């Protein structure tokens, strides 16, 4: 697929990986729809795209809402007349272990709140599902060439303290196999699906964390630094251009290893 002239929709496009994806495609002549919860982030990214001389719209929306999903797809079509690439970057974390024990009694003192579970599943899994479903609907009905990009995570392997996040991200990583299998079954040939599973990436979430803890994490990364959001965006751009990439999940981790060796 040629990026120039294509229409790209990015949820969570107001910062982090989503912002980098927006700018990567805008720089190369794509028209971009920026979906985010935070209006001031949307405004900033739209302004940046304007300064590049690009085409963009910003839509404040909650990705967990079916009505909002329909609205941001509709707005994209109203602005640009088609949709080619949908990247589901919107994500949150609400970390915690399943159970916490009282150090003295050994009994359960706290359990992971259902609200923490549900919020992460809603945003990171249901939000991705809604985006992929409604974007695919628009692409099929419009007959446009399309690419669906769920954003998974290297923590799909199962990260301690992230039962909610890892559960959502392993499900996101499965989507390309299922979606493309179903598309083949239904005779839908104009849409591909490739998930991206980033490793530790220099997003606001990570760069603002405890720097000592971050240093420990980086000891297990062969690259010796965090992955840049632009490097993730660049891979998504490559996925758009290389139509042989399909029905798979690509990890970009900089060589994340278990402590003292063996790549994860």
């Amino acid at each position, binding site marked *: 697929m040629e990026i120039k002239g294509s229409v790209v929709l990015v949820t969570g496009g107001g910062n982090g990986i989503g912002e980098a994806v927006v700018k990567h495609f805008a720089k190369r002549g794509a*028209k971009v729809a920026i979906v985010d919860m935070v*209006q001031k982030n*949307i*405004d900033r990214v*739209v*302004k940046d*795209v*304007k300064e590049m*001389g*690009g*085409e*963009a*719209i*910003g*839509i*404040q929306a909650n990705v967990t809402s079916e*009505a*909002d999903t329909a*609205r941001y797809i*509709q*707005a994209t079509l*109203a*602005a*640009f007349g088609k949709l080619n690439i949908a990247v589901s970057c919107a994500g949150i974390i609400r970390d915690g272990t399943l159970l916490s024990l009282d150090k003295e009694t050994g009994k359960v003192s*706290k*359990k992971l*709140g*259902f*609200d923490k579970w549900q919020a992460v599943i809603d945003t990171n899994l249901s939000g991705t599902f809604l985006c992929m479903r409604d974007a695919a609907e628009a692409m099929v009905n419009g007959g446009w060439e399309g690419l669906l990009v769920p954003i998974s995570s290297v923590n799909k392997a199962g990260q301690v303290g992230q039962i909610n996040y890892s559960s959502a991200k392993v499900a996101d990583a499965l989507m390309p196999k299922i979606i493309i299998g179903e598309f083949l079954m239904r005779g839908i040939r104009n849409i591909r699906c490739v998930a991206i599973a980033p490793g530790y990436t220099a997003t606001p979430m990570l760069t603002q964390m405890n720097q000592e803890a971050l240093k420990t994490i980086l000891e297990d990364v062969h690259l010796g630094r965090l992955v840049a959001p632009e490097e993730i965006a660049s891979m998504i751009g490559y996925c758009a251009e290389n139509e042989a990439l399909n029905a798979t999940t690509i990890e970009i981790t900089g060589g994340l290893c278990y402590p003292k060796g063996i790549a994860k």
Partner: protein
Amino acid sequence: MPTYTYNDMQFTVEPGGAGWDISYRAPGGACAIAGTGLFPGLPESEAGPRALELIRTVFPVGIRSVGPDVLHPNTIGDLKIVGPDVAHPNFIYWNKDSVSCPVDL
């Protein structure tokens, strides 16, 4: 340069790049760009109505909420899924976890 007052916000459509920019002033006075470089090649007479249509989609005045339709005969294969009878006297709307709120019930 078309301007519209809609949903307590003031929108302006003006040339930007090869197309049109839609900027707006929120009720609090903050200004921002809702879209940039849109509808390239369209004259003002056509870009204005297109922009207004887009503004109405991006900034809805309200969202119509429908359902749940508890009487709808949802079926999955041979299984009939019957929605909760929210009018039943024993119906409890449970939105708390057991740790945070056992006593109120």
